[in-house]
Each structure stands twice: as structure tokens, then as C-alpha cells.
């Protein structure tokens, strides 16, 4: 049987992390969670995930962009999706590609859409 694809979810909200993990694991993924940008970078280096979901506002209001920039220094290919609660007005003013993201997933996230986006990004 093929190994489960590994997802790294980074968010400072423990409830969101727990429920996102339950959703993704229930859909056959192996989800690792991190509760801050710095934890996320450690988890990325040690775990080598296949895809990353990253909140924007954590230790700092733009922590997500810092995480993406750091990861992109080493890996230009891994899909990284921004989870944003900032709002449509702000989200439409940023170009996620310029910040290292493959896309923006606006909160609140529809779980079926999240799973679909992840599967599509991983060509499943």
C-alpha cells in the first residue's frame, strides 16, 4: 500500500489544528501539526512533509509569509497554502505567488474544499 502523504499544518489555534488533523487524517493523510511559525519550521526540517498549510497571523501578523520565505530558500517545489482569516479585501491585494504560496485558502474553510485542494495539489 502506498505511504500516506504527509501534511504539515501550522496554526497557533489549537482547536483548528486538532480538527484539521482529524479531517485530513480521516481522508487518508498523515498530518503533523505545529502551533507557531518557529515550530512549523522545525517540523518542516525534521518531517519533510509533502504539503504545508500555514496560517498567516501567528506570533506576528505576517508570520505566515516569514515561514513561507524560509521554506522557499530550501525548497521551491513543495506546495504551501496560506490559511487566511484576514478577509477578502486584503487577500485580493496580495499576490500569494510573490510570497511563496501556491494559493490562499480563505477561512472559514469548507473541509470538503480543503481536502479537494490538497488532493489536487498532490496530484491524487
Amino acid at each position, binding site marked *: 500500500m502506498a505511504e500516506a502523504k504527509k501534511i504539515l499544518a501550522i496554526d497557533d489555534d489549537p*482547536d483548528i489544528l486538532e480538527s484539521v488533523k*482529524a479531517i485530513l487524517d480521516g481522508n487518508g493523510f498523515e498530518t503533523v501539526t505545529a502551533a507557531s511559525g518557529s515550530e512549523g519550521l522545525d517540523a518542516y526540517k525534521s518531517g519533510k512533509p509533502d504539503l504545508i498549510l500555514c496560517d498567516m497571523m501567528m*506570533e506576528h*501578523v505576517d508570520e505566515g509569509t516569514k515561514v513561507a520565505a524560509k521554506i522557499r530558500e530550501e525548497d521551491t517545489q513543495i506546495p504551501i497554502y496560506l490559511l487566511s*482569516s484576514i478577509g477578502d479585501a486584503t487577500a485580493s491585494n496580495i499576490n500569494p505567488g510573490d510570497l511563496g504560496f501556491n494559493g490562499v485558502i480563505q477561512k*472559514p474553510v469548507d*473541509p470538503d474544499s480543503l481536502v479537494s485542494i490538497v488532493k489536487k495539489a498532490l496530484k491524487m
Partner: protein
Amino acid sequence: MTITIAELFKQNRTFEGYKSALVKLNGDFSFEVDDMIDLGNQYLELYPDTYSNRNRDHVQLGYQVVRISILENMLKDFESSVKTFFREMFFNISRIEPVIGNLVKNKGFDAVLGYYDILAENNRKIKLKIDQIPIGMVKERYVGGITNFYNVIYLLKQAVEKNR
């Protein structure tokens, strides 16, 4: 009309205090857009937070206050015994499968599916209200707060379907 949720939070100031007082209202409180904004402003007055200087404990408290408010409004028309089960599941998702299994045994599949349908519809209505809140820190808390309900409701549906 009972006390507003903003006044309730001002009186209780902590999550546990607010939660305890809110649950006692048994859903009898106004949860319109203005009430949501007033609660948010009251919370920020007591627990300041700015984009440039984030206080993570204050942020998490904000999400928790929003979540219990949303939950109690969502459950307002449920019988008390059923409310208890759903409060348990929303605050501990590891309890979803065993609790739903027992509910289906005791109430029947159709009744439990009916509860799910009400929750999903109430979630949708609350989201429409959140959409009307002006962009800013208060809205950010409500968006972050309701985000978890989408996830939990998805997990509830999965658990219900497993018991079909």
C-alpha cells in the same frame, strides 16, 4: 430580554466565567450583528490586541469567547439533554464518534441527522451575520472562531453517516 452578551462578558471577564454564565441563559440571548460587535469590542477593551503587538493569550481567549457564544446560539432550540452532548463534542472532538453512536442508539438515526441539519443551517446563518461585521480585529476573531465549527460539523456528519 435578558442581559446582553457584552454585559455578561464585562461582568465575568474570564472565559470560564463567561461560559458558565452564558450556558445558564439556555440560549435566551440576542446574537444579532450588533450584539456580536459589542461583545467583540468589550473583549478588546478588556484584552487589548493590535496587529503590530499581538498577545497570543488574548487572541486565543477571543476565539474561545466567540466559540462558546456561537455554540450556545446554535443550540438554542435543542432540548437540554441533547445540548449537553453537543457541548461535549464541540469542546472535545475525540468524543464525537462515541457520543453520536450513543445518540443514534437512543434517539434514532433520523433524529440525529435532524440535529446535524439544524446545526449546519444555524452555522450558515451565523456566518452570514459575521460577513456583515466590518473588517478589523473583531471580525478576525469571529472568522477564526467560526472556522472550527465548519470542521466540527464536518466531523459530526461523518460520524452520523457511519451510523446509517
